């Protein structure tokens, strides 16, 4: 009887210990994309051109691939200008614009508030869709690290580098017309899709791409994190005959978009690589 009592005591003790240990169990969770301190908008585009064959390569894409993407041929006057230089580089870093030719500075100017205001006014005159959104433009330029390099060379250009912390603001109006950063694109969604979005009460969405990792939110609700591997896209490309070309630059890039439908609230926050 005493043995049985001891057995019950041991069982109860075990139950208590295991119960407490289970209660202290920490649920596992999906690892977030590690946040880094660098929140600049980096765009580095390398362009190589050959004035003799009148071909050019940009962002690691060949002339043929660029044509497939719908990039037009350069006009003759542009080729005439390019023929003069061996190397041309335009940099916008923070509050400064630099133009370098053959590695020598051609000009450099402060791109401060006054200079930006002047540029906005100039652009607004030429943009038929109305004045540009200064607040959005400032958001982009405040963190700008833009660099376009043009090199006279027959070799393939270096892969595109895009790391955008600021999200592109994409708006779809009630009629389905799509605009990016306030600029109409001429594209839109079908009335059926618009009706579906309306019926589903979808107001906005946030999509962030970071080197193959996709994070998304719809109406502020977080969706599962998707990781797309380059091998997977190559398989799809081959199976469906998509002819996507070199995917390296895309899988090295980070960017995101905030989509707003009709009168939905603007998507806030950033896509941090």
């Amino acid at each position, binding site marked *: 009887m005493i043995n049985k009592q001891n057995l019950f005591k041991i069982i109860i003790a075990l*139950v208590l210990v*295991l119960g407490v*240990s*289970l209660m202290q*169990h920490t649920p596992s969770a999906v690892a977030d994309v590690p946040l880094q301190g660098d929140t600049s908008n980096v765009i580095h585009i390398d362009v190589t051109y050959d004035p003799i064959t009148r071909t050019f390569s940009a962002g690691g894409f060949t002339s043929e691939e660029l044509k497939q993407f719908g990039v037009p041929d350069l006009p003759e006057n542009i080729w005439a200008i390019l023929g003069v230089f061996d190397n041309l580089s335009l940099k916008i870093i923070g509050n400064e614009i630099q133009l370098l030719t053959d590695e020598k500075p051609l000009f450099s100017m402060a791109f401060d508030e006054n200079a930006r205001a002047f540029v906005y006014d100039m652009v607004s005159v030429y943009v038929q869709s109305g004045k540009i959104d200064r607040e959005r433009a400032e958001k982009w330029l405040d963190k700008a690290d833009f660099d376009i390099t043009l090199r006279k060379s027959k070799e393939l250009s270096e892969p595109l580098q895009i790391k955008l912390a600021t999200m592109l603001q994409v708006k779809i109006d009630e009629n389905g017309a799509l605009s990016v950063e306030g600029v109409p694109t001429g594209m839109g969604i079908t009335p059926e899709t618009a009706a579906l979005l309306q019926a589903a009460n979808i107001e906005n969405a946030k999509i962030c791409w970071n080197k193959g990792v996709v994070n998304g939110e719809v109406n502020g*609700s977080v969706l599962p994190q998707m990781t797309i591997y380059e*091998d*997977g896209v190559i398989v799809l490309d081959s199976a469906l005959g998509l002819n996507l070309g070199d995917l390296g630059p895309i899988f090295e890039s980070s960017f995101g978009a905030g989509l707003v439908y009709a009168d939905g609230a603007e998507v806030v926050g950033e896509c941090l690589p």
Partner: protein
Amino acid sequence: MSRTLRVTLITLAVILILYGVYYVMGRPAIPLPAIRYHVPAGQPLHNIITATESDQIRVTLNTKGKLEMLSADNKLVALDYTPQTLANTVDLALRLSPGQTYSSYQQFVERFPVYPALANYVNQFFYQFLPFRISVILLP
């Protein structure tokens, strides 16, 4: 103390001890037998399978929060979820589903109001306490 109570207590203790060992081992997902499925020719999925080097795609669900699509040793796509993000996705899918699916679901929930809580409980149980892993091997 009655014999029934003693048996119940001992059974409970054994279950807890076993689960304790399983917990200490890091709660690995319990593997279930893989299901093989031949995709008929003419379907888009068939073309995707034949485009892989191994001529097969393995879709693995680990209820600890991971859904993967692999071909041989190459990862194609992976989805990491939590019970919350999974619930959000199901809700979105229902809302975007064609026809009367969403309203039918709402009517079903009105009739069985316990259903969302039950679904959430099952989801949490297999995510937090007893994860399992199941694979579907897709063949041409």
